[in-house]
C-alpha cells in the first residue's frame, strides 16, 4: 500500500524542477501582466492606481493598426518565402546526390547563427555606404547610386529577406526527416502508374508532407509574430517606424516610454494571438499522444 502511494507521487517528483521553472518564468509573470494591463505601474512594477481599460486604448489607434498590418506582411511573406525555398531545397536534397552530406551541412548553417549576429552581418553586407552588394552593383554600373536596403522604402522587405534566410533551414530539416519516412513502395507504385514530376509532387509528396508542413508552419508563424532581436538589431524599428513590428512596439512602450501598463495591454493582446496558435498545436499533439 505504502509502495503504491509512493509510486503515484514519483512522476511529480521528477517533474518538479520543470514545474518550478515554468511557474517562475511563465505563470507568475503572466499573472502580473494581467493586472499590469488594468493599472498604472511604475517601471519596476510598483502598483500606483487602477485605470480600468485605459491602457487598452492604444490598440484602437491607427498607429497600432499600421503596426499590426506590418506584422501581418512580415509574417505572411516571411512564411511564404521560407516555404517556397525550404520545400525546393528539401526536395533537392532528399535523394542521393554526390556531396549531399556536405551540402546539407552548409544549407543548415543560418539556423545556428544567433539572430543578433545575423543582424550585424547582413547590416554590413547591405550597408548603403560601404556594403559589398552596393559596391559591387556600382562597380558593375548596374546602379549609379547605392540602394537604400535599410531606408524607409525597402527596410521591411530587407528584414523579411533576412527572416527567410534564418528560417529556411528549420523547414528543410523538418521536411527532410518527413521525406525519409515516405516508403519506397509508394514511389515505385507511382512510377508504374506514370505519375512523375509535378504530378508526383502534388499527388504523392505534398499530401504526405502536409502534416509536417502544418506543424512547422504553425510554429514558424508563432515565432515570426514575436521575433524581436533580428529586427531590433538591424533597424531598431525604423526608419520612421517602417519596421516597427508588434514586439518592438511592446519594447518601446515598456522600456523607452516607461509605460508598463500600456506595454502590458499590447503584450496581452499578443498573447491572445499566439494562444490561438498554441491551442491548435496542443490539440494536434495530444491527438497524437492518444493514438
Amino acid at each position, binding site marked *: 500500500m505504502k509502495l503504491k502511494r509512493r509510486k503515484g507521487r514519483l*512522476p511529480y517528483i521528477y517533474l518538479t524542477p520543470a514545474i518550478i521553472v*515554468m511557474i517562475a518564468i511563465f505563470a507568475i509573470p503572466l499573472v502580473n501582466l494581467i493586472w499590469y494591463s488594468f493599472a498604472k505601474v511604475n517601471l519596476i512594477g510598483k502598483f500606483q492606481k487602477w485605470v480600468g481599460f485605459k491602457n487598452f486604448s492604444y490598440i484602437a489607434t491607427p498607429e497600432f493598426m499600421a503596426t499590426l498590418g506590418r506584422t501581418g506582411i512580415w509574417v505572411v511573406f516571411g512564411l511564404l518565402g521560407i516555404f517556397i525555398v525550404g520545400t525546393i531545397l528539401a526536395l*533537392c536534397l532528399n535523394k542521393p546526390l554526390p556531396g549531399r552530406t556536405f551540402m*546539407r551541412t552548409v544549407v543548415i548553417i543560418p539556423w545556428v547563427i544567433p539572430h543578433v549576429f545575423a543582424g550585424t552581418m547582413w547590416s554590413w553586407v547591405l550597408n548603403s555606404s560601404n556594403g559589398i552588394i552596393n559596391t559591387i552593383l556600382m562597380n558593375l554600373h548596374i546602379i549609379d547610386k547605392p540602394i537604400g536596403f535599410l531606408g524607409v522604402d525597402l527596410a521591411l522587405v530587407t528584414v523579411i529577406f533576412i527572416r527567410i534566410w534564418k528560417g529556411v533551414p528549420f523547414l528543410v530539416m523538418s521536411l527532410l526527416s518527413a521525406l525519409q519516412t515516405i516508403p519506397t513502395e509508394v514511389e515505385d507504385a507511382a512510377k508504374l502508374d506514370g505519375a512523375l514530376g509535378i504530378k508526383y509532387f502534388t499527388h504523392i509528396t505534398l499530401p504526405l508532407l502536409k502534416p509536417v508542413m502544418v506543424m512547422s508552419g504553425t510554429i514558424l508563424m508563432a515565432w515570426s509574430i514575436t521575433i*524581436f532581436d533580428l529586427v531590433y538589431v538591424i533597424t531598431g524599428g525604423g526608419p520612421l517606424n517602417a519596421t516597427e513590428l508588434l514586439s518592438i512596439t511592446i519594447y518601446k512602450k515598456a522600456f523607452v516610454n516607461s509605460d*508598463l501598463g500600456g506595454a502590458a495591454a499590447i503584450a496581452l493582446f499578443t498573447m491572445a494571438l499566439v494562444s490561438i496558435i498554441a491551442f491548435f498545436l496542443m490539440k494536434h499533439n495530444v491527438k497524437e499522444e492518444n493514438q
Partner: protein
Amino acid sequence: MNAKKRKTMKKTGNYIVRYFFVIIWMIIALLPIYVAVMTSFTPFEKLGEAMILPKYFRWENYVELARQTPLWQYLAASIIYALGTSLFTVVIAILAAYALSRFKFKFKIPFLMIIVAIQVVPQIVIVTPLYGLSYSTGLYDTYILIIIAMVATAIANPILLLKGFFDSIPVTLEEAAVVDGCTRVGALVRVILPVSLPAVTTAFALSFFNGWDAYLYPMILTSSPGKVSMTVGLSRMVDIVTPWNWIMAGTVIAIIPPILIYLMAQKYLIGGLTAGSDK
C-alpha cells in the same frame, strides 16, 4: 542502348537542376559569413573596397577589439549563459521526459499540453513583467535569473524530443536493471541515458544555441558590465558607430562556438531531431 543513354541524360539533367538550387542557396547562406570573415581582416581605410577575394590579413583588428572593448567579459558572460542554460535544461528535461514517458498519472495530458503551449510564449511578453519581478525578488542583475529564464524558453523542445526517444526504448531494459538491484534513478542514469546519447546531445546543442542567442533577457534584466553578453555588447557597438571591421571581428568570434557545436553534434542532431519527430 538508346534507352540506357536516355536514362543517363535524364539523371544528369536531374542532378544539374538540384545542384543549381542548392548551390544558389549555399551562396546566400554563406555570403554574410564570408563577408564578415573578410571584413574582420580588412584595414579600416580599405573598408570601401568590397573585394570578392580575400586581399588583406590585418589580424590586428582582433587585438584592437580585445584591447578597446570588454570583449573577454562579453565572451565570459555568453559562455556562462549558454553553458548554464544547456546544463540546467538537459538535466531538467531528462527528468521530466522520463516521467512523461514511463509513468501514467492524472495530469499527464494537461502537462504535455502546457509544454507544447510554452513554445510560443514570446520573450518580449515575459520580460515586461519579469523586469518588475526581478526587482522585488532581488534577482535583478544576476546570472541565475537569465539562465532560468532561458531554460524556460528553451525547455519545451528537449522535453518532447527526449520523451519521444525514451518511448522508443523498451521498458524491459530498465526492469532487468531494477531486478539487479538498481534504483529507478540508477536505472535511468546507467541504462537509459547511455543509449539516449543522440537525443541528449541534441537537447544539449539546442539549448546551447538558445543560451548563446539570449539577447532580450540579458539586455533588460542586467546592468553590470560583467553580465553583458556578446549579443548585447555587439549590438551596442553597432549603435555607437564602431568601425565595421571591429564589429565583424566580434561577430566572427561570436558565431564560432555555435557553428563548432553544430558541426560536432551534427551527426546526432539530424538523428536526434528525426527521432523526436517520428514517434
